[in-house]
């Protein structure tokens, strides 16, 4: 892992990681590495060396749906890459208004989970909570669909996400009853306690691990701005 990210900038990094992860799932064949986000040393987030560059403040504003300008010098010096990056960002944002089909829901879920994993990896309290669970895996899926993701702890010491396998082999599992429930969860609009009780969200396996990830997801929900729908 590179230098630790200051806690106050974690929300920016989590949002950027979430967006990039969504793109990866939406455009599996696109050369996305060119717009991979990086956090600048003191202020700013850059989507690739030639893509859009935002100050922390502008990026947070943009996430909240307010008008925010990227760095104009970058746009003018790399107009094609900037426009390409902008198109992708707009496509990701559109998922927060309309999202249907397995591919889009998987992408939306993956983006939401990536923000949680950023906190699981870098937020001191969240990381400490999971310190005893590093041999564990979490399966996340949508019932009766091919959407199935797996959270695991990789060999370099980070929580990561990949397309999943059968939930029974995971340490614990979460299954959304429908696309709609998965969408609401990704948008941060699902009441998890109500959903668990009414069967909209089915949990199984080592429930304490589900609770930990649920708790971290609520920290993320509180701290990381969600695009307005």
């Amino acid at each position, binding site marked *: 892992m590179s230098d630790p990210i200051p806690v106050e900038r974690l929300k920016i990094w989590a949002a950027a990681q979430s967006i990039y992860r969504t793109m990866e799932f939406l455009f599996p064949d696109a050369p996305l590495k060119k717009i991979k986000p990086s956090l600048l040393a003191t202020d700013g987030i850059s989507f690739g060396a030639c893509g859009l560059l935002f100050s922390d403040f502008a990026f947070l504003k943009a996430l909240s749906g307010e008008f925010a300008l990227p760095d104009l010098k970058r746009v003018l010096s790399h107009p094609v890459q900037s426009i390409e990056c902008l198109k992708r960002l707009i496509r990701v944002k559109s998922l927060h208004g309309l999202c249907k089909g397995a591919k889009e829901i998987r992408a939306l879920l993956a983006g939401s989970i990536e923000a949680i994993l950023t906190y699981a990896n870098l937020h001191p309290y969240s990381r400490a909570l999971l310190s005893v669970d590093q041999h564990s895996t979490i399966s996340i899926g949508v019932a009766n669909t091919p959407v199935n993701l797996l959270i695991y702890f990789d060999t370099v010491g980070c929580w990561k996400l990949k397309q999943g396998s059968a939930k029974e082999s*995971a340490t614990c599992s979460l299954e959304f009853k429908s696309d709609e429930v998965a969408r609401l969860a990704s948008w941060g609009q699902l009441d998890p*306690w109500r959903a668990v*009780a009414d069967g909209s969200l089915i949990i*199984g*396996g*080592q*429930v*304490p691990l589900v609770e930990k990830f649920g*708790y971290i997801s609520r920290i993320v929900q509180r701290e990381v701005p969600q695009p307005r729908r």
Partner: protein
Amino acid sequence: MIRKQSEEWFNRACNVIPGGIYGHVSPGASLPTNFPLYCHSAKGARFVDLDGNEWVDFMCGFGAVLHGYLNPRIEEAVAQQKTKGAIFNQPSTQMVELAELLVERVDFAQWAVFAKNGSDLTSWALRVAREKTGREYVIKARGAYHGVDSWCDPGLGGRISSDRSHILEFSWNNLDELNLLIREKLDQVAAIILTPYHHASFAQSELPDPDFWNEVRDLTHRHGIALILDDIRCGGRLHLGGSHRYFEFSPDLAIYSKALGNGYAISACVGSDEYRLPAADVFLTGSCWNDAVAMTAAIESLKISAADRVAESVLEKGKQFCFQLEALARSRQIPLQMTGIPSMPYPWIEGDENLYQIQALCKCCASQGLYFHPHHNWFISNAMSEVDVATTLQRAEVAFDQFAESL
């Protein structure tokens, strides 16, 4: 199983209560869509949920009920006390009577104090130990539950880094690790707080190794550390005189609650004479803690425990029941083991570390009206009759068949 009423009330609850139902009875902690969300009434070893489904109960209000729901002797005593009142400006004489009864019953106890919840007194007992020793650190077993306060609660929110800065943990039965902790914090450990045996949730229960309690007691004596027994869950279910008698050791302080009042909220801490003065110096109070009704229930409950030899009875009932349930499972190639002490057994399926199988099995049982919790030790009620056991086994047979077919 119909759950319409339960669900309607839960929806109402979600609007006005965070999480709808919180804590250990929150839906997510058990079988969210299989167990009822609300209870209506209970008697003996059965309860009826809000939708009118009758369940054979194996949780006893998570241990709060030992002599059966609505035990007539306790309810009669409670009804009489209610005609006089519950809370007054000053305590009632029941407080003295109850303390005398506990001091007589628990061999090492020379005084007793009372509160409402187990946590009230586990946290207070740590402070008494700190007052006595002038030390700061407390050692507990990893994964053990001692209450809802920030030094030990199993929740995740509302913590600050200092909450647990003086709490050390070791793995149950690992005396080397315990020794190391004590050596590392030489003359700084005020107390070791432990349950009689390790009955953590989401894990099979672990009994103490043969030398465990002797070693722990020896260590605490040698290092001037208070040994606090959290007997909240086990109290009354292992031995009439406290669970330390079952495992043959003697603590300095012990805390009881749950079964003490047979469903009426009360907790007690008893201690040896050495801890009497420190106990007097650690502030303890609560507006409703001198509740004469709950104390009356506790007095009657303790009397019944002695008269009916309840600890021995529930141990024997549990032993018979666990034996038959395991045999039933074995006949269907289900490797079910009832771990821990038979009066409060924890169900474990061999090879099921991630708990999917026990969850599936308990779901099948729930469909037959058996309240078998997949993640928490069960409690055998002394009101459990032969008919209840026979009914349970008949229903379990159907449920185990369903489960075996689903494999």
